[in-house]
């Protein structure tokens, strides 16, 4: 294992806060996803009270839809913010404890320090994506009763799409952590931006009274969570007139990755200039 990752593991291994938060994420992620069907059918029941033609109940865990649904529900902002906060804490801790100074004094370069955090982000995103893929497969198998032959054409694109969503989200957290350096401030502003400010901007942009355009899809958080745009629920098409997604488009992967690259670049530049 490489040296930087080795050091990073030592910092995390006995850190309770990390394991509790990350553990909670792993508990609530599958619960959330497995509650999705129940919630949707609840919604369908409510709609049926007011419509003459009743809509059928949905089943979202069958192959091949399970891939898209898992990717969609795992990348909603309320879920992604969890691992992002974990990353912010890991970064701002280094400023709170002044251990970043000590690491530099002891002979780490600033670039190595940043790379060590990027590596842990990459590893975390890969690990969560792998767990999601395995659980989607198991859930799909359980519901469909047969294994899926379209894994490579249907499963891989959506799981990769989720990986890009999560990775970008964690890079945004990396950006907030290194720019603000203070745990409370970074978590506060990141949450505020993700859950309130960007939804408002996005709402204004898409409002039929104002701009009516699709540019909101290119906002940082929105672009990251909309790699998988909709869940694969045919009933939604009927109710809301949505076009269902057949795969992941290159542009929807490119936008959040471009933001990520830009933020990584800014962090490296600022850290090389700024005093510690």
């Amino acid at each position, binding site marked *: 294992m490489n*040296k930087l990752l*080795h*050091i990073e593991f*030592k*910092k995390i291994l*006995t*850190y*309770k806060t990390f394991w509790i938060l990350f553990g909670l994420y792993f508990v609530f992620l599958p619960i959330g996803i497995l509650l999705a069907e129940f919630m949707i059918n609840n919604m369908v029941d409510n709609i049926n009270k007011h419509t003459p033609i009743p809509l059928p109940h949905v089943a979202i865990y069958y192959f091949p839809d399970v891939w898209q649904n898992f990717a969609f529900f795992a990348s909603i902002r309320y879920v992604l913010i969890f691992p992002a906060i974990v990353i912010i804490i890991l970064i701002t*801790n280094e400023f709170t*404890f*002044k*251990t970043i*100074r*000590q*690491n*530099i*004094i*002891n*002979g*780490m*370069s600033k670039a*190595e320090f940043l790379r060590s955090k990027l590596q842990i982000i990459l590893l975390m995103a890969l690990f969560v994506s792998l767990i999601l893929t395995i659980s989607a497969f198991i859930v799909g198998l359980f519901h469909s009763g047969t294994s899926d032959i379209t894994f490579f054409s249907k499963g891989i694109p959506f799981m990769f799409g989720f990986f890009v969503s999560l990775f970008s989200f964690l890079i945004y957290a990396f950006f907030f952590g290194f720019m603000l350096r203070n745990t409370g401030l970074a978590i506060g502003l990141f949450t505020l931006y993700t859950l309130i400010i960007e939804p408002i901007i996005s709402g204004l942009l898409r409002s039929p009274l104002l701009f009516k355009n699709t540019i909101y899809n290119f906002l940082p958080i929105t672009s990251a969570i909309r790699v998988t745009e909709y869940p694969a629920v045919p009933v939604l098409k009927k109710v809301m007139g949505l076009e269902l997604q057949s795969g992941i488009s290159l542009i929807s992967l490119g936008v959040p990755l471009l933001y990520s690259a830009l933020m990584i670049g800014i962090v490296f530049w600022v850290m090389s*200039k700024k*005093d*510690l």
Partner: protein
Amino acid sequence: METVLSINRLSKRYGKIQAVKELSIEVKKGQVFGILGPNGSGKTTTLSIILDLLKADDGEFKWFGEIPTKECRKRIGSVIESPNFFPYLTPVQNLKIVADIKDMDYGDIERVLTLTGLFERRNSKFKTYSFGMKQRLAIASALLGSPEVLILDEPTNGLDPQGIAQIRELILQVAAQGITIIIASHLLDEVQKICSHVAVLDKGKRLFSGEVKDVLAISDSFELSSSDMTGLEKAILQHPMYRSSEKNGNLLQVYFKGEINPGELNEFLHKNGILLNHLAERKRSLEQHFLELLQNNT
């Protein structure tokens, strides 16, 4: 002798405050070099610059005669300001991280913990340590792998008298092994007890530097009086250790460059034909001396 650190016309400004001004210092191998100055004189800023935590506005520095890189820092053990460790890790776990960064194995951890008296508490979390223990762990971390240079910023700050004595003893032990040591301190007494060389800083400027015995020599002063005051003033100029004098009523206040024995002084004046009717020694405290050093240069 081999130069370990050379600082050349270093300057650093924080907004309106000039923290370090055209500072030049040279530290040679084996020296115990003190950077002495009151709080806010630019000591920590200087150390932070040479350890790459801060960027200098102007000037340069070299470690081991080379343009500094991270590899240079691996040869240096440092304690800057407060002890910085992960509170939820034990000292052993914290020191393993230090060893990893410095590309060392973990074999030396036990030695430095024993040396600093922390071995018994090696498996308690850092956050449970007292301030004195935290400070000792910082020194243990700096000593890890026997670095070529040890940098200590106010190493005895905030410690009780016993702790201060222990740390000073430890520093002297390390110095005896020929390791170059750079110590920043605002305590004249500390620098005098530990260091061989010193640079005195005030408001970011270097006032003096040189060997401790020259720069910090305690020059005693004497009050002299004689019926022949003119003769006395003339004769005292001939004394080899004479530095300055001033007239104080019918007394002559004389400062010398070093320690003077009153008997010898009397004998010297007697040989020069002066009979004293008053001779009193005036010892000054180290603190007075330090303040005078600073005052003479403002």
